[in-house]
């Protein structure tokens, strides 16, 4: 066992022990306090209603974490131990290198000058015999085009094409790439993404099942330079990867991330490519694929390293766009919410999205405000502490599980302790405001993040 695995195991055991101790503490504390501290929650009707609502929400949250951990474990087990598929529709088409199809990597780029060359050089080193890179310069005003062209001239083994077009947004750039792609499969990514060497090989094998329309990659944070970016690294692993893995077990991943997604070109054309009426075109497209009956899976070993915002205001800008974009995409497909027979598992996916986008942030903000109010108004400060402890236990257990299973840096585990009270509170407040603005129909723009060239 190497040092890293030992560190992971040690921190994992410490984390789980801490979670167990905290749980035992809550039980003993509540038992000993008896009706004392908790009785204030039922002293009037409003407090009673809010308390019961928060209790129900907490139960749903625990259930969500447990279910996701369980099914992500099943997915992980299936992948690692190579469970043989009994599905008669799948055939071993891509059994050797000669049979591997041509893949086009579409790289939409708008003012990615600081990062485009590193990103493209990482693409030229991928382990796959037949692929091309297609850079779609979306009317950049910096030197993105020139830098991409210099890489194109350098590349001898992998064909690199650079097309330039009038600025029309990311969806438009991706659709242009889809039209010009020569490959049977398309990888859509961001202009600042660095892929792992095995990404293409790892994803293509899923397409041996003809029902699979797309594969989502694993997005990880590259620039772990300060506390904010390290917390985001934990969030990506715990919040995004675990959820996608669980959804992948049912072949219903609801968001193929923009930095890394592989699609059948025919399926993309069938659903009409990317629409331009939302600010989360990746989510919108994935929902269109799911609604058309295609399976969408997740490949954890196809890693896409991205540069995340390293300042709070940039982070809020990103999360504001994500929140409103996801709500816009969900609203486009809202019919399935009320038609479970027709929608099938897609109905469940839409309800889950509404829970995570609306109910969850509203409830955690409500919980924090409620217990702060109770603490100041009634002097019962321990309730907020209990609320925080319970949520932290969930985060700690999930962090330990994800770090161990995802082979991640164990130093991320301690961040789970302060994840909830600082980071998630600020993000959830921003989500609540973003949801209200979306409901009011406030106008918004893309708001491009400034690249720092950390690739």
């Amino acid at each position, binding site marked *: 066992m190497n040092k890293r695995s030992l560190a992971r195991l040690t921190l994992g055991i410490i984390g789980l022990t801490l979670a167990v101790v905290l749980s035992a503490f809550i039980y003993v*504390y509540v038992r000993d306090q008896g009706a004392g501290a908790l009785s204030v929650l039922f002293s009037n009707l409003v407090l009673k209603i809010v308390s019961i609502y928060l209790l129900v929400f907490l139960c749903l949250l625990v259930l969500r974490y447990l279910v996701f951990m369980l099914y992500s474990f099943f997915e992980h087990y299936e992948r690692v131990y190579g469970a043989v598929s009994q599905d008669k529709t799948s055939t071993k088409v891509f059994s050797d290198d000669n049979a591997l199809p041509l893949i086009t990597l579409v790289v939409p780029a708008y003012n990615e000058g600081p990062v485009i060359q590193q990103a493209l050089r990482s693409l030229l080193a991928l382990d796959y015999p037949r692929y091309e890179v297609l850079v779609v310069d979306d*009317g950049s*005003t910096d030197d993105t085009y020139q830098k991409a*062209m210099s890489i*194109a001239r350098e590349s001898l083994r992998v*064909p*690199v*094409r*650079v*097309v*330039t*077009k*009038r*600025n*029309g947004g990311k969806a438009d750039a991706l659709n*242009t790439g889809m039209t*010009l792609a020569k490959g049977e499969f398309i990888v859509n990514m961001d202009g600042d993404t660095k892929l792992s060497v095995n990404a293409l090989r790892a994803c293509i094998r899923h397409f041996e099942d003809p029902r699979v329309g797309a594969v989502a990659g694993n997005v990880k944070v590259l620039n772990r330079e300060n506390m904010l970016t390290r917390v985001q690294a934990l969030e990506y692993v715990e919040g995004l990867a675990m959820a996608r893995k669980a959804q992948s077990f049912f072949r219903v991943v609801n968001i193929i991330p923009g930095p890394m997604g592989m699609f059948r070109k025919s399926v993309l054309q069938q659903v009409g490519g990317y629409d331009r009426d939302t600010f989360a075109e990746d989510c919108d497209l994935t929902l269109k694929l799911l609604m058309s009956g295609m399976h969408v899976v997740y490949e954890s070993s196809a890693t896409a390293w991205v540069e995340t915002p390293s300042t*709070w*205001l940039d982070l*809020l*800008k990103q999360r*504001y766009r994500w929140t409103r974009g996801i709500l816009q995409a969900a609203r486009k497909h809202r019919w399935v919410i009320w038609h479970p027979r027709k929608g099938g598992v897609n109905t469940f996916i839409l309800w889950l999205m509404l829970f995570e986008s609306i109910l969850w942030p509203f409830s955690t*903000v409500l919980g*924090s*405000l409620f*217990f*702060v109010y109770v*603490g*100041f108004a009634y002097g019962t*400060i*321990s309730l*907020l*502490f209990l609320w*925080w402890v319970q949520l932290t236990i969930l985060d700690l257990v999930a962090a330990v599980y994800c770090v161990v299973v995802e082979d991640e840096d164990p130093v991320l585990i301690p961040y789970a302790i302060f994840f909830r*009270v*600082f980071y998630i*509170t*600020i993000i*959830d*407040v*921003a989500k609540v*405001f973003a949801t209200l603005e979306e409901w009011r129909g406030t106008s918004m*723009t893309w*708001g491009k993040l400034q690249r720092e060239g950390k690739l």
Partner: protein
Amino acid sequence: MDIVAILSTVILLATAGTIMVAVAAYIAFKVRERRRPGTQKVFGEGLRPGVAPIFLTRYLPPGATDSRRNDVGGVSSKK
């Protein structure tokens, strides 16, 4: 003062403070977004003053006199 009371006080103050910081951060974000130059389009979609739409060229049917361009549907393809 027992440890629970101390931790509870810390969490209470931290949560209250964080909520205030969160609201302030969101306000700062909205103010910054409104003041950012270039969010209001001066003319045309995606165009800036003085910059001609150089990437959009007219499609010429086969046999047209200008044979230097090789554009398809307004997209210039270069390798």
